[in-house]
């Protein structure tokens, strides 16, 4: 159990700055998810917390103690790697007890702790096997088991599920959620996967280009994205963006048409971007309401249909359950409920 503070942390590789001015407070027992596109520095941040990478600037504290100069073993943190990093020459039981053996824990205690962890993860039958003889999902469990046996202050996960197939991933996601509820340990979890981020996180940290873009609960990020990057990154399919100029309480699109804005938005502000999620767009038969356009492409996903439209020269996606517009080429009208609109200024910041 621990709190963590990251203060203006930065990281350079040579002269290249890959993380810049990272600030983050993590509460005791919180489940934090780091999301962001590939190469944005998620793993680097995680590894800095773990002590595997040197911290170029700023500081990282765990339980109010500065960690910068401490080696990993002094930080009492567990980490689950994307590759699992199970020791190939040790049995499952030895993998799980390695950290305890390093700490010279006595044999009965080790047996008890390994027993408890393996029972929790359903690994009892596999304890004598070598990692080579395990399936992907089982390896993943062993990696989790190795992390939980020693009851560390905090857990770090670096894309732990990305090597599993979709079904298993869903299952393990629920397991992790359950484990966290039981253990209540502070956790930081890196993922590419939207759904993982939304379902697991107490708070999500969205990162891009070495900077934190927004920190908040999953719904905060979904409902009130702080900028264009977060707006586009959270949600699937991604938010639609309409570029134009705002004047007379409406957005003037590049093709000359206009979208009326609700009263609480500024009446004039020049260049701006209006965002709306595909699932919030309202469709109506052509000519009845909204902007008229044609269906280019239809993607049925089973639990819904994604329509690709063209609006003001850009692709515009709509998620619907209505099966009336399945025919490519048919005309539809799209309209936007006022409460579902997001407005961003020319710099991409939410207004």
């Amino acid at each position, binding site marked *: 159990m621990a709190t963590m503070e990251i203060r203006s942390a930065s990281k350079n590789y040579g002269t290249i700055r890959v993380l810049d001015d990272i600030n983050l407070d993590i509460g005791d027992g919180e489940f934090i998810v780091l999301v962001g596109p590939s190469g944005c520095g998620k793993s680097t941040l995680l590894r800095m917390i773990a002590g595997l990478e040197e911290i170029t600037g700023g500081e990282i504290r765990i339980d109010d103690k500065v960690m910068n100069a401490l080696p990993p*073993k002094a930080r009492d943190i567990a*980490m689950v790697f994307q590759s699992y*990093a199970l020791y190939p*020459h040790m049995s499952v039981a030895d993998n799980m007890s390695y950290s305890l053996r*390093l700490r010279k824990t006595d044999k009965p205690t080790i047996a008890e702790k390994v027993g408890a962890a393996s029972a929790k993860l359903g690994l009892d039958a596999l304890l004598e096997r070598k990692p080579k003889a395990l399936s992907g999902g089982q390896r993943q469990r062993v990696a989790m088991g*190795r992390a939980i046996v*020693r009851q560390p202050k905090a857990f770090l996960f670096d894309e732990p599920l990305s090597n599993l197939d979709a079904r298993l991933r869903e299952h393990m996601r629920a397991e992790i959620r359950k484990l966290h509820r039981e253990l209540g340990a502070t956790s930081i979890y890196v993922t590419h996967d939207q759904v993982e981020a939304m379902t697991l996180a107490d708070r999500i940290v969205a990162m891009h280009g070495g900077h934190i873009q927004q920190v908040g609960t999953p719904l905060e990020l979904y409902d009130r994205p702080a900028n264009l990057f977060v707006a586009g990154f959270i949600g699937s399919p991604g938010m639609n963006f309409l570029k134009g100029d705002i004047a007379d309480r409406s957005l003037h699109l590049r093709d000359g048409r206009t979208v009326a804005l609700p009263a609480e938005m500024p009446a004039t502000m020049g260049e701006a971007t209006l965002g709306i999620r595909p699932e919030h767009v309202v469709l109506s038969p052509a000519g009845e309401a909204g902007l008229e356009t044609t269906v280019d492409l239809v993607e049925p996903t089973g639990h819904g249909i994604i329509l690709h439209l063209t609006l003001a020269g850009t692709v515009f996606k709509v998620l619907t359950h209505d099966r009336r517009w399945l025919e490519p080429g048919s005309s539809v009208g799209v309209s936007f409920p006022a409460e579902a609109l997001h407005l961003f200024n020319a710099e991409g910041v939410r207004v």
Partner: protein
Amino acid sequence: MTATRLFGTLAHRAAILCFIAFALFPLYWLLKVSVTPNDLLYSEGVRMWPSRTTLDHFRFVLANSEFPRFFANSLIVSGTTALISTALAALMGYALSRFQFRGKLWLAGLLLVTQMFPLVMLVAPIFKILSPLGLTNSLTGLVIVYTAFNVPFASFLMQGFFDGIPSDLEQAAMIDGADRFTAFRHIILPLALPGVAATLGFVFTAAWSEMIFALMLISGSEKATFPVGLLTFVSKFSVDYGQMMAAGVLALIPACLFFLLIQRYLVQGMTAGAVKG
């Protein structure tokens, strides 16, 4: 079509057989002469196998000559050299594989250069340095010299093997509470065991073969290694061919054993070590 393919296959097998014959014939001949009784040696000169065989030459060499001592000396020198070189090379190779540090390129370059310059150049100066230290005519002196000569290549070999082990593993160990050296001992070394075996074999074979420095640094038969002993024997009793070749067969044994041990790793080790280094 099938006729040409059949012909191709036959030609291929025939070519392989030619290479095998060429590779093995000299060793076969060595063995043959070593079991030929003296009285048949000249009368049956080029026969492929003598009409009578004997182990007398081996008996003589093992019982009445100094070869057992030469053999033991060589075994001690090569074994110790292999152990020390591999241990040092493991550390060095680990540093080259896992650390980014200033001067690393320079260091690798230095190792490479030591593989390029003529070792004969060092014969005189090394003799001059070791002589006042009492390390000439001593097995310890030979071990030191051989270790230095073999450790650069061994380091590149070990580096290649370490590069093949994901660094996630030792990082996981470090997070589990090991410091770097403990992680190296517990996790990396056991996984690099095949590499360690291959390196041991390479160094042992090289040390077993070394002759120039052994001739220069060792005088007298007390500390002579196998090559020194054999060459002295050859120049002294140059007509006892059967005995010489029996001794030659003995010299072949440990080298071949080690070779069989490592030959599995040869191709992979060369990819890892030599091409990279």
